[in-house]
């Protein structure tokens, strides 16, 4: 049976790579688009889980990183001489690392809720700055309209060569997932878990917890910025909505649906959320639902119910079915969120 488990990732990648050819001619373009969005959202959710699930940091400003990556891409591509994709990629990674380091150094000295507050405030400031139609900011940010109609190189243009973009998004997701997995299983990643479980103990053991948490924030912000880049390349536009609180909530929602503190969870969460959204908007279901029950209200209610009743998400349910690792992972989550430590932190 063990060889079956080894084959599972290969099988999943094979299925995902052949999926775009599996749909009927008339709908294949549409479904490719949905899958691309799922892959991009999965990277975004993964970036959030590195902070929330693996280091125990509650950031409410993940949209800041997403938007920063997105706008960097859009601004670089919107010039007279569009920058080459390699430059864009390097710039986005640089912005992600710098922003993560800046936000982390500024606010990680403080305990839990202060970090949440300051990240929420910073994201909201970006939201305000990028939305204003001020004459001096508009040439760069595009104001309320945002930056529309980007020239994406024809090879990966999502309208001309959607299949190419599909494989680009898929490959990015697999590469970043493997990278995150490698980092989490590295000695640094193990100490992140220690910080999550008990920060004081990790500090007493001699680890520089501030430096570790800043490193986690930098990794997370870079992944989110890359997700923002892919999102802008796919949409061919960047709007101030990327900085909104609902984008941060989406990351939270995907992570919690999938399962906090697992790497596969956010990917499953992204797929679930996007497909659920599709399903709710389809004609057969929306005829059933009362008109006042809009999709985002329903998602909000689902989120609240999940937090209250299923904090371990899909992966928690899967592990419970399998029965084996359930004990460990549930205990880990329970441990991480122990009341005693949080009270001590806030003192």
């Amino acid at each position, binding site marked *: 049976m063990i060889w079956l488990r080894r084959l599972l990732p290969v099988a999943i990648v094979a299925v995902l790579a052949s999926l775009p050819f599996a749909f009927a001619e008339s709908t294949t373009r549409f479904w490719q688009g949905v899958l691309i969005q799922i892959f991009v959202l999965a990277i975004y959710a993964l970036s959030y889980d590195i902070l929330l699930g693996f280091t*125990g940091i*509650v950031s*409410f400003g993940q949209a800041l990183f997403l938007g920063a990556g997105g706008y960097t891409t859009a601004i670089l591509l919107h010039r007279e001489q569009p920058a080459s994709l390699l430059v864009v990629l390097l710039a986005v990674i640089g912005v992600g690392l710098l922003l993560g380091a800046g936000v982390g150094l*500024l*606010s990680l*000295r*403080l*305990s*839990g*809720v*202060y970090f*949440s*507050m*300051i990240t*929420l*405030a*910073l994201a*909201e*400031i970006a939201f*305000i*700055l990028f939305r*204003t139609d*001020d004459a*001096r*900011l508009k040439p760069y940010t595009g104001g309320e309209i945002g930056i529309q109609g980007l020239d994406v190189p024809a090879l990966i243009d999502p309208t001309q060569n959607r299949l190419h973009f599909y494989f680009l998004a898929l490959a990015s997701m697999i590469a970043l997932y493997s990278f995150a997995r490698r980092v989490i299983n590295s000695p640094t990643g193990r100490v992140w878990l220690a910080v999550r479980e008990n920060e004081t103990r990790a500090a007493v053991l001699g680890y520089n917890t501030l430096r570790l948490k800043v490193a986690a924030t930098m990794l997370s912000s870079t992944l989110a910025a890359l997700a923002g880049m892919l999102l802008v390349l796919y949409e061919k536009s960047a709007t101030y909505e990327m900085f909104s*609180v*609902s984008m*941060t*909530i989406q990351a*939270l929602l995907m992570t*919690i649906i999938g399962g906090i503190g697992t790497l596969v969870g956010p990917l499953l969460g992204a797929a679930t959320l996007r497909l659920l959204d599709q399903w709710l908007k389809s004609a057969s279901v929306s005829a059933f639902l009362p008109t*006042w*029950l*809009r999709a*985002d*209200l329903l*998602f*909000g*209610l689902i*989120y*609240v119910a999940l*937090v*209250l009743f299923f*904090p371990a998400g899909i992966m928690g349910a899967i592990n419970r079915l399998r029965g084996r690792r359930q004990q460990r992972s549930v205990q880990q989550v*329970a441990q*991480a*969120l122990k*009341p005693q430590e*949080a*009270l001590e932190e*806030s*003192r």
Partner: protein
Amino acid sequence: MSVISRPSTSWRSLRSQLSRWSIFVALSAIFGIILVVAPASWPKLVTGIVLPGLTLAAVFFLLAAGLSLIFGLMDVLNFAHGSLFMLGAYLAWSCNVWLDPRYPGHWPVTIASSNLRFALGLIIGMLGGALIGALIEVCFIRPLYSRPIYQVLLTLGLVFVFDALVRTIPAWGSLSRPPIKPSALSGSLELLGRRFPTYSLFLIGLGFGLALLIGAVLQRARVGMIIRAGVQDSAMVEALGINVRRVFTSVFAAGSGLAALGGAAAASFIGVYPEMGLEYQLFAFIVVVIGGLGSYGGAALGALLIGLARTFSDHLVLETSLPTAIASASTVLVMALVLVLRPGGMFGKQE
């Protein structure tokens, strides 16, 4: 060679040397510098900067007082506090519109006097907010005391739910609605040769009156004593035979009611729109961070400072023709600076 090392100039030692009044002094100095850079005449200073600042301070105080006390008492930072402010505003706005006999789609029962509608709006807004606050505490916060991170995650989810709810209700919607003032407070007064709206004076009076009233209750009444003791050490209060959970619920309801009252009063001043909750929530955060989370006096003083800082920076932006977005960004910079230099704020517990 001396054995004792000289004090290093790291952040930590700089922090410990800062007294609690340093924030106050620094902000006052900034106000002074702004007046030097962009001078204002006396009437302009009073009616154009200080009084509008106090008006904002009154609204900020109503929001921040509950936020701070709730955090101090039960270690819950309510991210949905601004949503209660928004709901209070929408409830009051609805009273002003739907009970108006001249409004085409009014309710079967109408009230002819706009003053009476306004007063009713304030009361309904406050009571509605308190009720929703109590429900939030009982249904959502209470089951999660064993999982504090989830409490924070949940309150942020409630922001999303309330936002979607307001946009869903057809009569409220996503649009911004203009403020409706009662006839008694829609005029303006002559102050130092300039006109100043009566409604702002009403807001200042409401804010300062409630600040003094709540302060007196906290200092003198038995309930206030229990709350202050609970902020210090809630386990000890429980050990003394007081039902702390009930105190939690009532303080949560009272804080929510206060925020909703602030929203109801502000609705006739800034109008209503779905984003107002988050917008004012951020100001409330800045206020409580400056004052110190958990401190009532800190919230009051912080509201005063941030209200004034807002109008002073608006004045500076207008005089020097900087982008207006900078003014809204600057207050967050103030918060970041305070957090780095003195994380406990003026009166909070220091880390």
